[in-house]
């Protein structure tokens, strides 16, 4: 089966900053995958390259087998991205925004699906409200809805719960988990590591543009537990993350993806 996302030897430099350095990873279809790292680690750069918002200096990136540069029409249709920044078009209502986004992807007469998304994200009552009038949390919901209007098989959420309340987080994860169960591949970046631990089957960690860990969530936790030398302490992903980020060796911990391990 072709991978949902494949990155092979991706490097990207912004002036003197090496944003990504020879990053390779493969995300299988149907996975719930976590992409973690501190600020400036290269997560958003990698997502931007996958989405065609930025061009890699070297390497090959594909989405559902489609090269993000050479076959961008196909790769972009396969991908839905929730951007990190809270951006919106102040001229339009929520419904207009979603209809336009659907139309950009060439999907016409899509109101049934748009209505369904709005129900799941609790946006129905705001359908005819101008984007400017929405709260930050509501705008975040619209961003999620925009990424889903064309029913992409691969969904990338770049810190979707940053600054949103508990209620939205829970309803959002419920909806995203359902999409994952329906077969959508989910790629999540977040600083809330308890969310990643609870949701993601596999996790990659980036540090200063380099891939420093790539394994199943359970393997990462198990390895850390072994390092604790049977003290009986149950580590969580935050401790694993801190330990890997403080590790100066930069060695990549890698195992095959879910289903092949």
């Amino acid at each position, binding site marked *: 089966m072709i991978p949902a996302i494949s990155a092979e030897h991706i490097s990207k430099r912004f002036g003197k900053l090496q944003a990504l350095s020879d990053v390779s990873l493969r995300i299988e*279809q*149907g996975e719930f995958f976590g992409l973690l790292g501190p600020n400036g680690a290269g997560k958003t750069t990698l997502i931007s390259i996958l*989405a*065609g*918002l*930025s*061009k890699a200096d070297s390497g090959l990136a594909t989405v559902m087998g489609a090269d993000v540069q050479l076959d*961008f*029409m*196909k790769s*972009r*249709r*396969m*991908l839905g*991205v929730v*951007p990190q*920044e809270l*951006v*919106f*078009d*102040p*001229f*339009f209502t929520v419904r*207009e925004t979603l209809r*336009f*986004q*659907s*139309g*950009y*992807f*060439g*999907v*016409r007469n*899509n109101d049934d699906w748009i209505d369904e998304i709005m129900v799941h994200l609790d946006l129905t009552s705001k359908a005819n409200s101008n984007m400017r009038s929405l709260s930050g949390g509501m705008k975040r919901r619209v961003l999620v809805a*925009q990424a889903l209007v*064309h*029913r*992409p*098989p691969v969904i990338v959420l770049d810190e979707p719960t940053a600054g949103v309340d508990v209620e939205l987080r829970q309803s959002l994860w419920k909806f995203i988990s359902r999409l994952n169960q*329906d*077969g*959508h*591949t989910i790629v999540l970046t977040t600083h809330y590591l308890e969310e990643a631990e609870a949701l993601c089957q596999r996790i990659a960690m980036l540090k200063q543009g380099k891939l420093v860990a790539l394994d199943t969530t359970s393997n990462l936790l198990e390895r850390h537990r072994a390092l604790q030398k049977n003290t009986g302490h149950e580590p969580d992903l935050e401790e694993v993350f801190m330990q890997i980020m403080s590790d100066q060796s930069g060695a990549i911990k890698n195992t095959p993806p879910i289903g092949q391990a």
Partner: protein
Amino acid sequence: MQPAFEYASGFPTLLRKEIKRFYKVAFQTVAAPVLTAVLYLMIFGHVLEGKVMVYDQISYSAFLIPGLVMMSVLQNAFANTSSSLIQSKLTGNLVFVLLAPITHFEFYSAYVLASVFRGVVVGLGVLLITLFFDMPSFQYPLWIILFAFLGAAILGGMGLLGGILAEKFDQLAAFQNFLIMPATMLSGVFYSIHSLPAIWQTISHFNPFFYMIDGFRYGFFGISDVSPWTSLAIVGIFFVVISVIALRLLQSGYKLRN
């Protein structure tokens, strides 16, 4: 898992969005420029009527009307693409278009066609209201339409270039105030270049805006400073040059996909 849709082009939606964007603020984007042009006609027409005769048998107000219409078409076509793109860039919502499977040609066509639409709407508004003041003849309507559409498309393309290159609003304002505005005002809107000193006549021939307005005016009166075919050739070449530059920048993602 494969998506559940048959996909069409994103171009019609982007075009519709760009038109709807200026329609939502039509008081600012249509009514205000029409009022400005009418004020020009009232002031210049009143002051200079009877004192300036550019072409025989044609009053100054009648001469002025096509120039004002074309000036409005050009300035508003430029404003539409440039303001839309710079706003989307600076607020970040351009990402929604950049994430979509829209080719650089579709992107360019949608933005430029929307600017042509706004330019023509404003131009028609100016023409309809100024007809209450004086009535130019309509000798060759096809020339009028041709130059209006080509001129608007060129300025739409230039607005797109300005929007791509500018990183701040004041950079775009400089582009507009120090390039577009002087080139438009010095293109023969208010006068025939035959009334200028020889040196300025020569300089005017290097201003592509002059050919847009002269060709447009030919459609009304059947009289022009240079042959309409010459104007058409120069305007056509200018359109191709602007389009090629804009398309290359869009294709490379310059200052957009970074």
